[in-house]
């Protein structure tokens, strides 16, 4: 009996250990994968809450790697009309008028826990997945754009033109609203969002992970250094957090 028990425990420990070290390390400090792939036939659950952490002290002025990566990942092309062109992520510049100190940071859909976009949507097209990712179900969206008005972060865009040859993981078309999907197609495969991967090549200002898991890198960093919500006063509990603002 005793031997059996020992075997069991060690087996369990081994499995537990394997699950905890989900990130694949190829060289010290280079993390290829920080999240575990979900089996294709398994539904998402609220045990996980995906989030992002942006260290604005590392975010470089003039760098738009995240924006470029996002546009190519989702096949977003502009029409030289900045007012209406789709953007999932944009760089925002903050200047302290007193000291003249300039800071830049990426802003995208903040994947609010109590998402105003989903609250106002008359059709149920705007919704939050169990794992906290806020999406637009374009099959249902009627293009009324209430959600665009309700979003305090100006995160959403309306598609004004016919679209062809879309990426097969990002269907998008005229007459519907869209915003950052947190690269849900990649996250479901256990990969990081495209912006995070791009940023990690040089500046390493963006982190992605499970806010519910105390052992994830993002949670550890938040615990150690803290992280702010933009417009925390609105009480939306966004999944995207910022350091250094």
């Amino acid at each position, binding site marked *: 009996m005793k031997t059996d028990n020992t075997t069991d425990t060690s087996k369990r420990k081994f499995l537990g250990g394997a699950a905890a070290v989900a990130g694949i390390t190829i060289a010290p400090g280079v993390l290829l994968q920080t999240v575990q792939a*979900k089996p*294709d*036939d*398994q*539904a*998402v659950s609220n045990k996980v809450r995906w989030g992002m952490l942006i260290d604005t002290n590392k975010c470089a002025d003039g760098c738009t790697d995240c924006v470029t990566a996002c546009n190519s990942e989702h*096949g977003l*092309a502009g*029409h*030289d009309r900045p007012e209406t062109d789709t953007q999932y992520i944009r760089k925002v510049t903050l200047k302290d008028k007193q000291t003249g100190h300039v800071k830049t940071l990426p802003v995208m859909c903040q994947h609010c826990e109590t998402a105003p976009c989903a609250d106002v949507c008359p059709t149920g097209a705007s*919704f939050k*997945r*169990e*794992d906290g990712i806020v*999406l637009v*179900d*374009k*099959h249902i969206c009627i293009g009324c754009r209430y959600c665009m008005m309700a979003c305090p972060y100006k995160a959403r865009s309306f598609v004004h*033109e*016919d*679209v*062809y*040859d*879309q*990426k*097969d993981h990002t*269907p*998008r*078309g*005229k*007459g*519907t609203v869209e915003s950052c999907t947190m690269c*849900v197609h990649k996250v*479901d*495969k256990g990969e990081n969002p495209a912006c995070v991967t791009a940023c990690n090549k040089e500046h390493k200002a963006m982190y992605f992970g499970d806010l519910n898991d105390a052992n994830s890198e993002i949670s550890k960093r938040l615990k150690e250094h803290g992280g702010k919500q933009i417009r925390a006063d609105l009480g939306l509990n966004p999944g995207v957090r910022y350091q250094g603002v």
Partner: protein
Amino acid sequence: MVSWFQKNLQKSMLAVSVLLLAGSVNVNAEVAAPVVPKGKGEQCVEPTGEMRKNHMEMLKHQRDETMHNGIRTKKHALKECISCHVQADDKGQVARFGEDGHFCSSCHNYAGVNVDCFQCHADRPQELIGKGHKIKPHHTANFNDASVNKEALQALSKVSK
């Protein structure tokens, strides 16, 4: 009470509809059965008859499961249908949705059933994008292609001047 006028109107309308019916029968007789392009694979994921009858139900079910629950099984996914069924022809051209040579359109054009799927979804596998027609005949330019975009915008601005 039905008036004389109404009675005659009914009669004449009946006559007209009989004529129309006869006409449509004639037209139908002249339309050839659709030529459905061959897919890449040997066998579809379900029996052909089942697919013909119920493909829309399977696609719709899968769409909701993927969108809302993150289920990404491949069997009934539109992406997989397209990647098998939409192929380049002998000349290396890939038909657009709407043209008879496109797998979905071959039947949908024949049956006169319009679908919205390809207003958002790519109508061809990713590796075949850029092959075939860039501009849909009855539509605006393909704005995903930077060069076409510029040409189209120039053309538009010329018209408005």
